[in-house]
């Protein structure tokens, strides 16, 4: 690889890393998402020309903000010759900003800017999938085409969806003042949930979609790291980052060469990413010292129990059962109870687990994993006919081809057994 190649990769990574902070700061000046995005694009183009010649600036983010701001103001000035001046509130802090910009680019400003930007993306008026789409467009800078591919919709449909979401955000009253401590904590929760959603979009992909949607997991981890740098003392952000790292560490072993699901207990643990696991475990270790466990941290601790086991039979299921008990208290949901039942089946047997999930049936009647687990437990108990019914229901509810194929495998085995017997 030549030096020029390394530089291009470095610049690419620097632009990606600076994007949330730079777009957020530009949004503060221009109070318009499209203007802020265009200004950032302009600054990136100039960086691609200037940095290889002059070397990267000491603070790439500050450079991009300053250059992006000037580029956008140039545009406004040119327009103003032929049209009336834009209203004052569209260009805030015009006079003093230039002189004091660098002074103001301290951590506190970045933090509130990025939080505001992320918070705008998880506007409560938007449905969750739109929150994720807008965040990927504005915060992560993915192209509409990339996002459309990740969501398995057409490019023009996604373009429309994002434009509509932006319009709704623009019409809503977005608070631009510095948030107070309490408000900030509330926002941080919403933002953490949005990062978690981005991750799940990628994690639930399988087979063919893996290439396009797997990148969403990397992106979610990058956003979680960004949050962690902005809020280094928040145990739940440590927990969220640890959770994503510990789950994603298993990605290389989750699917076989044909794109079929490989269950946790069948995975080649040698393929797991040791460095991600080490970082996740260290973050849990650190977060636990705060003695304020939250749902993300407990979920991370559960993932850690799996990652720690060198062989499936080394898994500490009793501890996982206890942790799910904690999670049921912190964030009760039928899905959490369903997951706990997997641990209960290992500790106390399939009968106890089946008893535990039966009351969940009315709430989870549309949930793939409920019928998958039910079928598996019935099969262990030798109740084959009932198992077959449950597996049939699971296939009908499968979200991805890989999920359906996995259940199909169980069914085929059942058919073969009954044919042979």
């Amino acid at each position: 690889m030549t030096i020029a190649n390394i530089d291009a990769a470095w610049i690419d990574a620097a632009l990606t890393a600076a994007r949330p902070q730079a777009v957020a700061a530009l949004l503060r000046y221009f109070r318009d998402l499209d203007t802020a995005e265009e200004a950032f694009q302009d600054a990136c183009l100039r960086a691609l020309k200037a940095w290889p010649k002059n070397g990267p600036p000491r603070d790439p983010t500050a450079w991009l903000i300053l250059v992006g701001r000037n580029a956008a103001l140039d545009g406004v000035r040119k327009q103003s010759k032929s049209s009336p001046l834009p209203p004052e509130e569209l260009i805030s802090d015009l006079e003093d900003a230039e002189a004091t910009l660098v002074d103001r680019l301290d951590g506190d400003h970045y933090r509130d800017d990025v939080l505001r930007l992320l918070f705008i993306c998880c506007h409560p008026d938007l449905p969750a999938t739109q929150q994720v789409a807008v965040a990927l467009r504005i915060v992560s800078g993915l192209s509409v085409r990339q996002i459309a591919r990740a969501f398995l919709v057409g490019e023009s449909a996604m373009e429309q969806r994002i434009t509509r979401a932006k319009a709704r955000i623009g019409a809503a009253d977005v608070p631009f003042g510095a948030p107070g401590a309490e408000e900030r904590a509330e926002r941080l929760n919403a933002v953490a949930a949005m990062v978690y959603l981005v991750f799940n979009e990628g994690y639930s992909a399988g087979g063919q979609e893996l290439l396009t949607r797997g990148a969403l997991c990397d992106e979610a981890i990058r956003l979680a790291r960004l949050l962690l740098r902005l809020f280094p003392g928040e145990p739940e952000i440590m927990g969220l980052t640890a959770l994503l790292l510990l789950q994603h560490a298993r990605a290389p072993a989750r699917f076989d060469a044909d794109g079929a699901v490989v269950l946790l207990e069948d995975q080649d643990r040698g393929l797991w990413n040791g460095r991600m696991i080490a970082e996740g475990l260290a973050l849990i270790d650190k977060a636990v010292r705060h003695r304020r466990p939250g749902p993300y941290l407990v979920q991370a601790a559960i993932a850690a129990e799996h990652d720690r086991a060198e062989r499936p039979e080394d898994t500490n299921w009793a501890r996982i059962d206890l942790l799910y008990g904690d999670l049921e208290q912190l964030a009760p949901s039928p899905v959490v109870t369903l997951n706990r039942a997997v641990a209960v089946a290992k500790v106390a047997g399939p009968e106890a687990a089946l008893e535990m999930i039966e009351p969940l049936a009315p709430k989870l009647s549309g949930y793939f994993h409920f019928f998958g687990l039910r079928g598996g437990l019935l099969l262990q108990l030798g109740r084959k006919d009932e198992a077959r019914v449950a597996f049939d229901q699971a296939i009908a509810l499968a979200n991805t081809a890989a999920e359906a194929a996995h259940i199909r495998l169980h069914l085929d085995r059942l058919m073969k057994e009954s044919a042979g017997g």
Partner: protein
Amino acid sequence: MLYAILCYNFEDVVGAWSPAEDAAVMARLGAVEAGLAAAERMGATARLLPTTAAVTLRKGRELMVIDGPFAETKEQLLGFYVVDCTDLEAAIAVARDLAVANPDRGAYEIRPLAVYRPGSLDGASRQVRGREAHVRGAGA
């Protein structure tokens, strides 16, 4: 003379590398390390996990563990210990012992290691000692 080479880069740039890009950089570094190791000039190598995974034990009248590393910029990294501990608690205990032994100012940053290759530090220092003896012999 042995030199410690401490690696600096923008953490958010390195953090934005994809796993494939990261692996490519590590492979290139690995080639350099292999050359040095073959020449017995390679000591211990450690890659630190991100700063967000670190905690700091701040010295003072009362020893205090805080989320770190937020050492003041005036304070510089002077060296590092590599210790084998079962968990963070044990590592902090070691740092406490060090802080008690050297109670002046400053802080110890406790950072888990991602990669640790013991290398041939002993071999290298033996070689260097041998060369020094040779130089002294030539001077005499």
